[in-house]
């Protein structure tokens, strides 16, 4: 029996204002999981420390890794994040789901999507990704830093009554989603 979290919370994490995703290091290497990180000194709730977050240059530095970040620019209505608590044979887990839908299928978008999903060698590897989320309350969340987000079966591209890409990522882990803070 799954229990959905956050439904009664004051903050609305399901509403995403900004979403940045990383599927590789800036060098082109795959991300080394779990991503090691420091916590903000003095914080009592283990806020993840991100040393640099340069959206113009397209990278962030967390722990010892420099990650290439791509802004997924979508209306909030087409982007959701949920975290569910589950008890099953694996024990107690939190299932984090990130879904979003992008408009306009064209080959420039295809190329960008492929660049994100494929390895630097051009192999379709269904990348392991980390997401950085800013919710509508301007709180910052990092997802998949321990157990990476995995592209789920059902990624979809449609040209019919709609013209869209639909992507779904999922991460199952033993911890809840954490906040992060940018601190050099």
């Amino acid at each position, binding site marked *: 029996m799954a229990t959905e979290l956050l439904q009664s919370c004051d903050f609305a994490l399901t509403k995403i204002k900004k979403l940045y995703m990383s599927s590789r290091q800036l060098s082109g290497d795959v991300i080394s999981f779990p991503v090691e990180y420091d916590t903000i000194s003095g914080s009592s709730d283990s806020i993840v420390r991100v040393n640099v977050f340069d959206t113009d240059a397209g990278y962030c530095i967390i722990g010892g890794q420099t990650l290439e970040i791509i802004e997924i620019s979508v209306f909030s209505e087409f982007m959701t994040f949920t975290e569910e608590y589950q008890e099953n044979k694996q024990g107690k887990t939190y299932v984090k789901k990130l879904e979003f839908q*992008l408009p306009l299928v064209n080959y420039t978008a295809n190329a960008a999507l492929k660049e994100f999903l494929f390895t630097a060698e051009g192999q379709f590897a269904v990348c392991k990704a980390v997401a950085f989320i800013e919710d509508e309350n301007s709180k910052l969340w990092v997802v998949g830093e321990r157990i990476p987000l995995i592209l789920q079966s059902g990624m979809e591209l449609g040209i019919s009554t709609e013209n869209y890409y639909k992507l779904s990522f999922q991460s199952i882990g033993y911890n809840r989603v954490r906040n992060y803070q940018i601190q050099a």
Partner: protein
Amino acid sequence: MSLYSGTIASNQTICYNGNPAAFTSVADASGGTTGYTYQWQYSTDSGSTWVDIYGANATTYDSGTLTATRWFRRRVIDSGTPAETGYTNTVIVTVYPVLNAGSIGSNQTIYSGTTPALLTSISGASGASGDYVYQWQYSTNGTSYSNIAGATSTTYQPPALYANTYYKRRVYDTFCGIGYADYSNVVLITVSGAPPATPSAPSGLTATNIDCATCDLQWINNGGGIVKNVIQRWDGIAFNDEEEVSFSATTFNGFELYPNTENQIKVCAVDSGDTYYCSDAITAQTTYIAAPTGFSGYLDDKNVVLSWTNISTGATELSVYRCLSGGTCEYIAYLPYSATTYTDTTTIREETYSYSIISECHGYGYGTPFIDFTIPTAPLVPPFCDGSNYAASGSTCGNSDGVIAITNIDYFTYYDFTLTDITGGTYTFNTTTGEATGLTAGYYFLTATVKPEYWYYYGRETCTFEWLEVIDSDTTMSNTSKSVRNVVCGGFGRTQGRIAYLCTDSGSNPIYTAKLYNKDTYDLVQTVTGTTIDLIIFSPLNAGDYYCHITNDAGCSLLIGATKVQGQSLRSVAGIKKLWLTQWDENVEYDYWAQSDDDYYLSGIDADFFNSIKIKRFIDSTLPDVWYSVNVQTKAITFSQTMEKTKQGFVFNDKLALTIPEADNTKWKELVDILQNRYILIFLDNNGYYWCMGYRHGASTDGYKRENNEYILEFNAISENKILTNIDKQYIIDSIL
């Protein structure tokens, strides 16, 4: 018997440093106890104190040379116990003072054959006994001297001499003898040649090259012992010395004359006694010099045009003299003597100037009366912001010699201008030339602002001309082409913009720095440094206009103007509007897009794109059948691609479904034929993109009838790891349509 000391002899007088005769024993010691010991002693203070003379123990003693008077005695000691001591009488040796010859005077210079002045005794001899004998001596070489017969007084009158001669005076004392002679100082009589002749006045004085204020003079120098020549000029009352030249001179160029005057000139020889021996006077008439006449002028807009008539017969030049209304005056031009006009283009509007033309000659000036001009205000000019009323001229590599100029300086009357570079540095315009100088190659921003007093005419207009280029005219770099990858305004593509500049450098410089600026914000977006200029890439970029400035290590610049990274709107129209299909065969060949022309991707840089994103063409000869066109309605056709996790891994499944209304047997028979094959499908969506499916393994087909009396025709294909593939529009046009 008591001890008797004996006696010694005798007193003497000697010259300075003389040797007295040995002292004798008149009587030796006697009496007392025999066995006597003698010791000679001397005193320098009349016998008050005595000093034993070492080794002088005989009855007699011979002293050495003496330079001062001394007293001597002999002491004796007998052999008794106790011994007795006694002293002889004292003898004195008197020593005369040293002889000094005195001094004579003095050196002279004479003409050959003339008699020198008497050689005088400045001081006589002194010392010794005081009875002196003088003897004058001469020498022609200063080394070996000879006595002059009869010259034995304290002074001497030499005879007439013809060669340099040295003289000195010898003195000796009659007591001491010639062996103790002393000599005075030496005087030299220098013989300087024959005596001068009697001076004569110069002759043959002439004046040549006479102009408005100078002439050249020549004369014959008649010599005669003169020490200089003096040129005199008549001032209306007397001849006055004007120039002084050497005694041997026979010419003088550039002698200054009174202008417009008959100048009277003489040249005089002057001897050592300052006596003048003057030539006859000559007359030199200067050429005529006067102020120009007919001086007038007029205004040509802001320029002052002057003209005049020259009436002088000789002048060196003309000058234009200008005074400001405030009293400041200056020479603004120097013109050749033949000039009759001048245009002053350096005036400032609304200023008043006074002008005079001056005929000049060697510092003399004759000017016209002043005439005044007030420069009118500028005529109103078209609004600056309405046109390109500026010009940028190039710099050279590594130098600050570029210029941006306002093409009409009247604009400075109505506008204030500011000029800045991309870093915010400011530059000032010269309002006379209209130029801002000292610019290096780069981008500049020119802002014009109407002055408040002219708002009534131009309005409060302010405009900025952006990204003006000052280019190195001798740069070795050039831009051959550029490739721009646009961004998609959303999804994954918003920061995927990229600019690639392809450049060359004939100078083969090893280090380049390329800076990219945003057109709107002026911000420096990115800096790229590298060792090759062939391909310079800026990425990632947002949509916008960009300006690039490349410099090499030779100091040259290359400016590449606005390059636009477009943002592709996410606005789209759903659905498919055209469909083509043909039979697939395993031998079908195709090429992915492999050229960067007409596209945003770079061969060698975007390998993924060239491997799968877009097909350039099919090799038509490998297709088993022709292309068929299927009329579709947007609502009746759908396409989707989904990713599936399979045992083989992740694959993309493509599915195109076509709804065929009004099912009947004829259509079913056609469907049955279609269902027997695998197909390649190309469809055009409502956004203008051409897509292709089934080209790798062929799309299988499936058909069935739904309850609402319509057939559904489905095409399914596995595209493995290929996201939906685009196909070149030109291929569609050339091979399908």
